[in-house]
């Protein structure tokens, strides 16, 4: 049985399952396929061992569809786990589009992580874009349609830039293998840019905050796991140790914390927070040492879980109240206490409290940065850690479940949502308490002890005193209140500024064109009518010049010509 399973690339398992789901009637059978596929895929990857297993020829290239090594394996495993938890959370969904796209999306992301060459990577790269946009459109509102369009344009653009880079790379090196590259040529810069778009680098980031809150409740949980972490994997594979990533990652870790602090839509707060977490991972890739890459991989693993947990808890609240806006929520712990507790576990994990998953993973990256003596980067990342506590650790649970009472008394989340959240929360704590479980599947051997007195005391001081600062600021009424508003980000450039410039330019061009057209038409008509006036049939010239005059003048001309020829 296992031998048979080993014959199929993991991504194809998901694609086959997507077809099966389309055929099966709605109900338990369909849900079992949705939950079973990631489990089977994880078993396949776990039992397959390391190596390259599946090559197909395409136009003279050999596409490597199954490259399993210690780096790709951890990403594939967490993708499977995320697909399982996301589908469990979405058990109530009776929407074929969402079910099929969830499977196709997970399959594409897993396929991309297993690609041994850049062409296969490109196919799967675009696959994630196309499959995932349906999770946004499935909301079926005009706003989500436009948001999905913006998302799709940017994601597809990333793929187009990737294939341009890959073609140039092949032209330069004669190879399509997806290995470590050096920045320097146009080809590698293009590939880097393509990864950067999907990884939400600063200034390229806004598709993330724009689109994730626009997806369906369950769609956002699934979206949060794959695209950006796939980009982190691609950077770790292709550009480990590229110094510029350290600075990019630091900016990424820092700037979203300010935006998250004042954002009202809690799912957008989480999207900013996701961006900030990616910053830590990108710094790890930039450092590129074994410790740092272990930090990146483990952080991605833990992050997918706690981020999904936070999206699930806010999603469950949205499922019961219809809103995820902080200004409309508050006091929900009273009737949704389990969801509140799961949310707090997610908040503690992302804030990296000892005994939670964030603590044992983020400290790897921070230690790697310190080990390489980047003091300012390290200080900035510690600042960013306090920022994480602020928006994800405090803001999300506090303004949803506590703070002022919104008067809403919704019923507790449905059982399958509680199960999904409970399982994810358990994993967050399990990883935090038993770090060796996660450390054992990291790309490199781990020689690191997170639970030393020094680490614990330092982290507790940082978090507790930041909490104290919050308490003082909040009690004094200085904390920015939750108000209904939108905050501008770089997307204002392409959503408002560029369209209005375009409208303005097109207005000027069309106006000047029509004026020139009118003017020239007028001049032409004027010219013809004047010509008609002087030379037309009724003109004075026509009257004084009889038709015979032409015949006479031609005869005279011919006579002249004859005369010249005769004497020359």
């Amino acid at each position, binding site marked *: 049985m296992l031998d048979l399973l080993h014959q199929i690339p993991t991504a194809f398992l998901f694609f086959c399952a997507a077809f099966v789901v389309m055929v099966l009637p709605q109900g338990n059978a369909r849900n079992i396929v949705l939950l079973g596929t990631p489990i089977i895929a994880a078993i396949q990857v776990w039992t397959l061992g390391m190596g390259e297993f599946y090559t197909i020829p395409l136009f003279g290239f050999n596409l490597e569809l199954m490259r399993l090594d210690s780096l790709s394996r951890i990403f594939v495993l967490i993708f499977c786990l995320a697909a399982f938890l996301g589908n469990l959370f979405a058990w109530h969904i009776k929407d074929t589009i969402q079910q099929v796209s969830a499977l196709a999306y997970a399959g594409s992301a897993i396929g991309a992580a297993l690609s041994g060459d850049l062409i296969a990577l490109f196919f799967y790269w675009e696959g994630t874009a196309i499959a995932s946009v349906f999770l946004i459109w499935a909301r079926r*509102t*005009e706003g989500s349609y436009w948001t999905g369009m913006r998302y799709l344009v940017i994601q597809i653009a990333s793929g187009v830039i990737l294939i341009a880079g890959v073609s140039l790379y092949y032209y330069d090196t004669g190879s399509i293998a997806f290995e470590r590259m050096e920045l320097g040529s146009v080809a590698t810069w293009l590939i880097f840019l393509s990864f950067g778009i999907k990884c939400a680098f600063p200034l390229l980031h806004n598709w993330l905050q724009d689109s994730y809150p*626009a997806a369906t*409740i369950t769609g956002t949980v699934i979206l949060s796991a794959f695209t950006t972490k796939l980009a982190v994997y691609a950077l770790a594979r292709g550009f480990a140790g590229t110094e510029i990533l350290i600075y990019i990652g630091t900016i990424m870790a820092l700037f979203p914390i300010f935006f998250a602090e004042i954002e009202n839509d809690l799912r957008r707060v989480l999207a900013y927070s996701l961006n900030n977490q990616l910053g830590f991972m990108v710094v790890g890739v930039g450092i590129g040492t074994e410790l740092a890459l272990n930090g990146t991989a483990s952080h991605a693993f833990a992050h997918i879980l706690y981020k999904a947990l936070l999206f699930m808890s806010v999603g469950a609240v949205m499922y019961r109240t*219809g809103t995820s806006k902080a200004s409309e929520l508050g006091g929900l712990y009273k009737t949704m206490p389990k969801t509140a507790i799961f949310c707090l576990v997610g908040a503690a994990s992302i804030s990296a409290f000892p005994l939670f998953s964030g603590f044992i993973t983020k400290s790897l990256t921070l230690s790697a940065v310190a080990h390489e003596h980047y003091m300012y980067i390290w200080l900035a990342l510690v600042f960013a850690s306090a920022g994480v506590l602020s928006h994800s650790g405090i803001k999300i649970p506090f303004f949803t479940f506590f703070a002022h009472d919104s008067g809403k008394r919704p019923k*507790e989340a449905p059982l399958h949502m509680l199960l999904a959240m409970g399982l994810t929360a358990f994993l967050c704590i399990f990883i935090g308490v038993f770090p060796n479980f996660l450390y054992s599947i990291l790309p490199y051997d781990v020689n690191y002890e997170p639970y*030393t007195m020094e680490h614990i005391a330092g982290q507790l*001081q940082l978090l507790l*005193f*930041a909490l104290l600062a919050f308490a003082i600021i909040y009690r004094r009424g200085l904390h920015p209140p939750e108000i209904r508003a939108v905050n501008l980000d770089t997307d204002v450039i392409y959503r408002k500024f560029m369209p209005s410039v375009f409208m303005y330019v097109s207005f000027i061009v069309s106006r000047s064109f029509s004026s020139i057209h009118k003017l020239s038409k007028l001049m032409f008509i004027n010219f013809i009518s004047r010509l008609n006036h002087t030379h037309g049939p009724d003109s004075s010239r026509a009257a004084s010049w009889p038709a015979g005059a032409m015949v006479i003048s031609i005869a005279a001309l011919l006579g002249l010509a004859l005369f010249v020829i005769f004497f020359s």
Partner: protein
Amino acid sequence: MKKVKKSTQDYPILGRWISWVDKPGSNQKIFYILIILCIASFGLEWTYEKHAYFEIENYKGFYAIYGFIVFSILIFIATLLRKIIKVREDFYLEKSIESEVYPEDQIQRIDHNA
């Protein structure tokens, strides 16, 4: 006291336990507990030997002071930032989800008493 009990008695049992945080005075108690925890974590400084990467880490209570200061700076900058970038919720009009309501057919509003 009785009034609080009466209004909370139909909450789920976990909800009733947690509702301690809303009782009069709890707010103050939580604040004092936090201060005690802060002092305790500060006190831990004297229980171990530091193997710092940077000189700055060797100062007693570096993380505590840094955490407190950067958090305050963060809130301060964010408040300023809001003044610059805040616009009305319908700024992007029909091309965003901000001014829409979430489709009712995709959610299940149930009151906890129902």
